[in-house]
Each structure stands twice: as C-alpha cells, then as structure tokens.
C-alpha cells in the first residue's frame, strides 16, 4: 500500500462524503443499540454504505439474520461488476493482495480508481489500495464518533427513525432515472407491504425484491429479443 499526496488529493471528495454519511450512520446505528465499537468493527469489515443503513433498519425491525444476509447480498451484487472491471488492473497481484483490493471496492473508490488507472500511467495497485482503504478508516471513525455523540445527544427516536426513511428515499431517487425503474420500485413496495402480513422473519423485503426484479428482467429480456428478432 502506497499512501501519498496524490492519493489524498484524489480521495478528498470521498473523505468528505464518508465523514458526513458516517456520522449519520453512527447516529442511526446508536438508535438500533449498536455500540460505538460495534459500529467501528462493522464499518471496517463490511464497508458498505447503503448496506449498513439497510442493516440498521433491519436491526431496528428485529429481522432474522438470514434475511439480513440475503438483503445485504443483493445490495452488494453491484460490486460484482466493479470487481470484474477492476480485474485486468490487479491480475498480476498475489492472492492476499487481490483479496485486500477487492474488499476495499465501493461505488466511490471504484469510480476514482478506474478513472486513475485509465488516465494516469503512474497509477498503480499500491496507490489504488491506499485510495480504497483510507476512506474506509474515515468511514469507520465517523461511524464511531456519530455513535458516541448520539448516546450523549439522545435525539428523539421517532424523528431519527424517520430520517433513516428519508435517507432511503434519497438513495432510491438516484435509481429512478427511467419510468420502468419507478414502476418496479413502487411494485416492489406494494408487494412488500402485502407480503409483510404473510411471510415470517421479515423476509418480505428479500422476497418482493427478488420477485419484482426477476419479472422486470424477464420482461426486458423478452422485449429486447422481440425488438431484435
């Protein structure tokens, strides 16, 4: 790992973003009875922004560990694409190094890293790993601080739970750039409400996501085939 000035310059926007999101995540986590140390450990090991927010919402709901696992797996599927795209740049690395590199891929570190690999011929995996890992420390420390501060501030629980919903609304809106996506989201939501009366262990989130995304995918593949044929 090679941590230098160039890495800091490129990662600066990520540091700032993760600082504020991390503080928010820590505050929300405290409401789900996560201790500062647990928040820190979770942030280092999982290192997943939306994944952690979703996990906190599910912890507040007393969801089963299985449904936390499956939901988190599905939100993380996008990392498969990032890792695939990153592979040519790290194929020469040893196995432990590749694993370390992969573990530090997030939406933001991937975007900056892939841009640096393409445009800067002096950019290498050592700087790339530093660029992936240093925001993780910022994220984890911000989580720790947010969680510690929330215990002192003692914010109103009802409002804080709502802020988590508002947060999801904001993240959701970023995925609504096509009408089909809005329809899929609303359908997923309605199905989830219906399923929540029927299925146990809070599996309604996972089930409705799987059903709706599979149907939408099937429809789009069929449509593309019809158009081509």
């Amino acid at each position, binding site marked *: 790992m090679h941590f230098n000035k160039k890495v800091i310059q490129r990662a600066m926007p990520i540091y700032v973003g993760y600082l504020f999101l991390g503080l928010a995540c820590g505050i929300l986590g405290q409401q789900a009875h996560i*201790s500062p140390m647990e928040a820190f450990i979770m942030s280092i090991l*999982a290192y997943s922004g939306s994944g952690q927010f979703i996990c906190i919402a599910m912890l507040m709901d007393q969801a089963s560990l299985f449904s936390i696992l499956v939901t988190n797996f599905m939100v993380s599927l996008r990392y498969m694409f990032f*890792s695939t795209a990153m*592979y040519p740049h790290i194929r020469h690395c040893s196995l432990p190094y590749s694993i370390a590199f992969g573990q530090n891929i997030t939406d933001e570190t991937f975007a900056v890293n892939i841009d640096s690999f393409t445009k800067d011929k002096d950019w290498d995996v050592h700087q790339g790993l530093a660029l992936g890992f240093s925001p993780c420390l910022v994220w984890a420390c911000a989580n720790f601080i947010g969680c510690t501060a929330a215990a002192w501030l003692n914010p109103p629980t009802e409002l804080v739970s*709502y802020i988590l*919903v508002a947060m999801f609304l904001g993240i959701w809106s970023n995925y609504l750039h096509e009408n089909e996506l809005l329809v899929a989201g609303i359908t997923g939501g*309605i199905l989830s409400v219906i399923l929540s009366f029927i299925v146990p262990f809070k599996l*309604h989130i996972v089930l409705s996501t799987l059903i709706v995304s599979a149907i939408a995918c099937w429809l789009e593949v069929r449509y593309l085939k019809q158009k081509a044929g």
Partner: protein
Amino acid sequence: MENESLYIYGATLMMVLGTFSCRELPLLLLRGRKLPDWFSIWLKYIPTAIFGAIIFPDIFLKDNALNFSLENYSLWATLCAFPIVYKTRSLPMALIAGTIFFCIFKYVI
C-alpha cells in the same frame, strides 16, 4: 455476552459474508470473465425494488397494520417530500425536506 450484542455481531457477520462474496467472486472464480447480459439487466432493477420494498412498509404500516390517519407522520411527510426528492434526486435534499415535513406533521398539524 448479552443477547443484543450477539445479534449485532451476527448481523455484522452476515454483512461480511454478503459483501465479501460479491466483491471477491469475480476476482477469485470468474478471473475477469464477462458477466452474462441478463445479469446486468437484472442488476438494474434490484436497487429500486429493494428501496421500494424497505420504504413502503416503513411508511404505510404502523404497529403491523395499514395506517392512513394523520397520526402516521412518516407517510404524509414522505408523500409531501417525494415530488421534491424525485425532481432533485439529491440525498441532502431528501434529508432536509423529509425532516421538515415530518416536524410539520408531528408538531404543527
């Protein structure tokens, strides 16, 4: 260790399994081979379906029952904030608009 802590560490372990497998599988098994086309189409619909599936029960249900009364502040705050959030597609805006509307419904109306 108390139960709550065990539950949180269990959840952390699940998170690690979920994120780790997605990050490492392409590097270890696929060795950079291309993912199938249907996979990217499927992937496009997952985030929107997941967030819909999380948000709707949170706002429409209160104590495990549908609740459309004015007492359900989350629902009305979200319905008022949604047009703004949808138009701006901004996370800070969602937090600001959501919080303001929630406070209006809870403390003013």
